[in-house]
């Protein structure tokens, strides 16, 4: 019979906390990279020029066809092999996670922009606005409302998937958990603790997402 000894983890609480910090750091920056690359890819795919749409499509297709774990390792080692530049693991983690999610989010952005009612943009065009103005004043606010819930969901997945960056020897939550197991031989307790922390973060995020959605509905 396995005796549970959660108290064995207590001395390692600071380690878990530090791991949580790293996980949040990686997730937030990866989200920023994801949103930025996602927007760029979405604009490229929506453009009139095949020179932009085709490469964007191929890129998105490739990224979505590769497992995230493989992509992370590929970026970490691949970049230094092909360019001779050693990038820090954290950079590979943020970049890999960010671009991976950017590829998925670009489809959300694209759908959100395409879903904007034509009557809305036409009214703005009829006022004499420039294309940029129409985008800024009408398309963007509408698209923002549609993409916010799915983007929050992507962020929740991203936080969970960030555990994969532990393979790059980054001391995120998962990695710290593994270290604690090595030190205490309390595998079940350590992983339970980590699971609960991930669960807490994602729960907070989804509550936040639900609140945002309600606020958006009310504003219409």
């Amino acid at each position: 019979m396995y005796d549970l000894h959660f108290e064995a983890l207590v001395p390692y609480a600071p380690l878990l906390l530090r791991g949580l910090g790293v996980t949040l750091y990686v997730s937030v920056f990866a989200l920023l990279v994801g949103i930025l690359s996602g927007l760029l890819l979405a604009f490229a795919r929506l453009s009139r020029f095949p020179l932009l749409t085709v490469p964007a499509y191929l890129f998105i297709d490739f990224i979505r066809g590769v497992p995230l774990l493989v992509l992370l390792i590929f970026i970490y080692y691949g970049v230094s092999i092909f360019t001779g530049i050693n990038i820090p693991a954290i950079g590979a983690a943020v970049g890999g996670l960010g671009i991976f999610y950017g590829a998925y989010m670009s489809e959300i952005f694209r759908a959100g922009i395409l879903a904007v009612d034509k009557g809305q943009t036409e009214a703005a065009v009829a006022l004499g606005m420039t294309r940029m103005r129409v985008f800024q004043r009408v398309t963007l606010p509408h698209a923002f409302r549609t993409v916010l819930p799915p983007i929050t969901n992507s962020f929740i997945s991203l936080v969970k998937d960030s555990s994969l960056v532990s393979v790059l020897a980054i001391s995120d939550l998962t990695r710290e958990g593994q270290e604690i197991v090595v030190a205490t031989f309390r595998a079940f307790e350590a992983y339970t603790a980590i699971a609960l922390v991930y669960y807490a973060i994602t729960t907070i995020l989804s509550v936040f997402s639900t609140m945002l959605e309600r606020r958006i509905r009310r504003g219409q």
Partner: protein
Amino acid sequence: MRARIELPGPPTRGNRRLAERIDLEPDEILRAANVHKRFGQTDVLRGIDCVVRKGEVVVLIGPSGAGKSTFLRCMNGLEHFHAGDINFGGVHLSDPTTDIRRVRSDIGMVFQRFNLFTHRTAIENVVEGPIYVRRTPRAEAMRKGMQILEKVGLAHKAKSYPGQLSGGEQQRVGIARALAMDPKMILFDEPTSSLDPELVGEVLAVMRQLSREGMTMVIVTHQMDFAREIADRVVFIDAGAVIEEGDPRTVFSSPKSGRTQAFLARVLVH
């Protein structure tokens, strides 16, 4: 390999020959001459000629699919046409170097489905054009915007979102949004056809008021009684061409063309 055959026909955007150009008489604000437009293979406008004089109310009538909306949308460049010219206030819409946005900012448009910006309040809808196209300072735009909302009887709804307004109120905000740009002319595409019957009157009342004040208006409508009442001139369009036009009394009571007679017989069932 297929040989490329040059078909005779109106110039297209790609190989626009010297554009046809039409000039205005002094009392005219818009003149369309020989306007052709096709969607794919279908010729929707087949040589429309039409004049709008300053301060005049022109009502376009005709069967569904005749091309009324398309022609209206050509007037402010929402649709591109393949041949002919539209001259608005001395500017040739067929000229590719024309700043079409300038033209649009001087022409108001009121839509069948209102097309109010759903994420903005009534007053925000009204000041959007003045602030972001005319670059009017916000405070001034707001002050004028409130006056215009007052005029259409909706000052008390300034802070309401379109979703909180009735159809009739939304359409009056739509008219206020057009008015806020100090337009030289306003286009109405079936402004009352998506309204419940009891809400039609309030919108027509605003349009009557504008007509009294001398606003130049081009109105597409299926409401023949209103057309007869408000129009200075009625233009009957069928199959992409103007079949007949004239003052409403003449066109409605003694139409010359057989097609006009047939159309009126169908819509004026009493």
